[in-house]
């Protein structure tokens, strides 16, 4: 019996040594991959930052209003944000690659799933980013047009435009990831339909006078007469 126990212990010890001998090189490879990833991520980060500085990307972002949104959200400037994102994405990619080298089947499955989602997540983030730029640009254009035309509640116009573009961008991003595709489409259609109906009812019932005034302004002669005496010729 004593011999059996000793044999068992010896077997266990051998197994452990074998496992460690098998695992340690993989761990070393993982560490090397992660360290290489760190180096590559740093290089890519500085390279992207350099290119963005060279192309004056911050100025473009400032013009489009994206920098303003980032400042409001207490985020770093656009150049910094993009280069940091690239750093973390590269580093994360290498880390996951390193972990997969360990050869743990459950982990490998999850990692391969995550890898498959990576391009979709990247595209979704890009869609959201373009959505932010477009919503800022268009809402500011709507605000200026409404202010200069003398419409009531210009911020409501501008806010509505921003909201619609945001909803559109979010639904496109979610669809890109493939998250509850049918639900997103249905929710978006219902939501947009409801907003349009609400606006139609509000304008038709609540704003009858405004509707009348607007039509008179554009179609009736009264409007034309009024317009004529509004402002002196600038040129």
């Amino acid at each position, binding site marked *: 019996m004593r011999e059996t126990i000793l044999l068992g212990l010896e077997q266990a010890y051998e197994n452990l040594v074998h496992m460690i001998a098998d695992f340690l090189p993989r761990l070393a490879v993982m560490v090397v991959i992660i360290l290489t990833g760190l180096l590559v991520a740093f290089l890519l980060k500085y390279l992207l930052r350099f290119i963005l500085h060279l192309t004056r990307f911050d*100025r473009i972002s*400032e*013009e*489009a*209003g994206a920098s*303003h949104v980032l400042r409001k959200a207490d985020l770093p400037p656009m150049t910094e944000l993009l280069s940091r994102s690239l750093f973390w994405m590269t580093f994360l990619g290498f880390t996951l690659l390193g972990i997969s080298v360990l050869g743990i089947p459950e982990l490998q499955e999850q990692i391969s799933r995550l890898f498959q989602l990576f391009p979709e997540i990247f595209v979704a983030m890009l869609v959201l980013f373009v959505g932010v730029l477009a919503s800022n*640009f268009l809402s*500011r*254009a709507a*605000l*200026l*047009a409404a*202010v*200069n035309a*003398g419409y009531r509640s*210009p*911020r409501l116009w501008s806010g509505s435009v921003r909201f619609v573009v945001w909803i559109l961008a979010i639904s496109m991003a979610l669809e890109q990831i493939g998250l509850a595709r049918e639900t997103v489409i249905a929710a978006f259609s219902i939501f947009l339909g409801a907003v349009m109906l609400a606006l139609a009812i509000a304008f038709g019932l609540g704003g009858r006078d405004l509707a009348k005034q607007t039509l008179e302004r554009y179609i009736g002669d009264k409007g034309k007469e*009024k317009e*004529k*005496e*509004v*402002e*002196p*010729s*600038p*040129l």
Partner: protein
Amino acid sequence: MPEEFLLSDDLLRQLMSVGEVDLLVGLPSHNNAKTIGCTVETIEETFQHGFPRERVVIVNVDGGSKDGTSEVVMNATLPKHPSSRGLTSLRTEHRIVTRYAAAPSPGIAFRTLLAAADLLRAKACAVISPETSNITTQWVGSLLQPVYRQNFDFVAPLYCRPKYDGLLARNLLYPMSRATFGRRIREIHSTELGFSGRLATHCLNQDVWNTEAVQVAPETWMAITAICADFPCCQAFLGPKEPVAGSSGTDIVTAVRQTVGTLFWCLESQERVWMERVGSEPVPTFGPDRELSSQKVRVNRKRIFDLFRSGVAELSPLLKSILAADTDAEIQRVATLDERNFHFDEVLWTRTLCDFAAAYHHSRLNRDHLLQALVPLYRGRIYSFLLEHQDSSPDEIEADSEKLCVEFERQKPYLIERWNAKT
């Protein structure tokens, strides 16, 4: 020509059949069939009486008219003058008609005219707008004579205006262009002008024709180019200008986007020239150098004031990012003033424009949005002007304009400081 610009085969054929000319009058048009016949007749009458021996051509550049404008140009005939005895001229008076696109574009039309002037080696050219209903032979002669007979290269028009007309020119374009570029040309933006073949060739060779500023207001760009390149410039008084009845005119937002946009763009492209110029010099003027009529114009002042006030309130975050802190604070204060005691003085107006020009240069905002954000403030200044000059005589208005110009010249170092400031 720096970048590819192709004239149509038909236009080239017409130009070759004309050969060389002394005088060229350009008529950019778009659906002007009602008035352009009369304009062509007036131009030909000017040729017959003022330039009987010169080789002349009228070039109509049409932007896709659907009312037969080009046909009217070709078929217009000069009615026989009772005093003439049959033969009026031994030369052929050429007319060229060309269509450049399906939609009007001032830049393409102007460039085509310059190319025609260059190819025909025209000595003096004039551009006349068929939108004006009261063109006389004196107009055309006044624009051509200084170039053809007195060696000027650029002739800006001067008009007799009702006192509330042309307020953008009076309050912004003239004072700012005078202070920066150093020449006292009142109508920096006009659809009528005269220029030499030399200036036409110079402008044609500039690599700017694809920029939006030049596309929308090429006349303004040409005026500033002539000033900056030290071409001899002058002004010629034309008389009252009356738009065609029923035409809506240019609205404030479009006018600001086109003219102020081009002025700011020229400030940027001619930076090295204007930064070195100090003060301003008058240019020779043929006829009176100003004339205001007391003709009443119906103006809804209350609406202008309301638009200013709501604009300042709604755009306050935008204005904060464009204006210097003290200018912004002062504008916010002015916007709280009572309608009857409102005053948007020349110091504040000048500093506002300097801040806007610098913000345009630093691209602090999308440039088109920036120009649109100026409109409410312009309305504030206009309201102040209208309030102040309800009963003013033309001389008083003129004195006030001069005060504004002097203030702009005084504030030029501030503009340079803001322009050069690092963002």
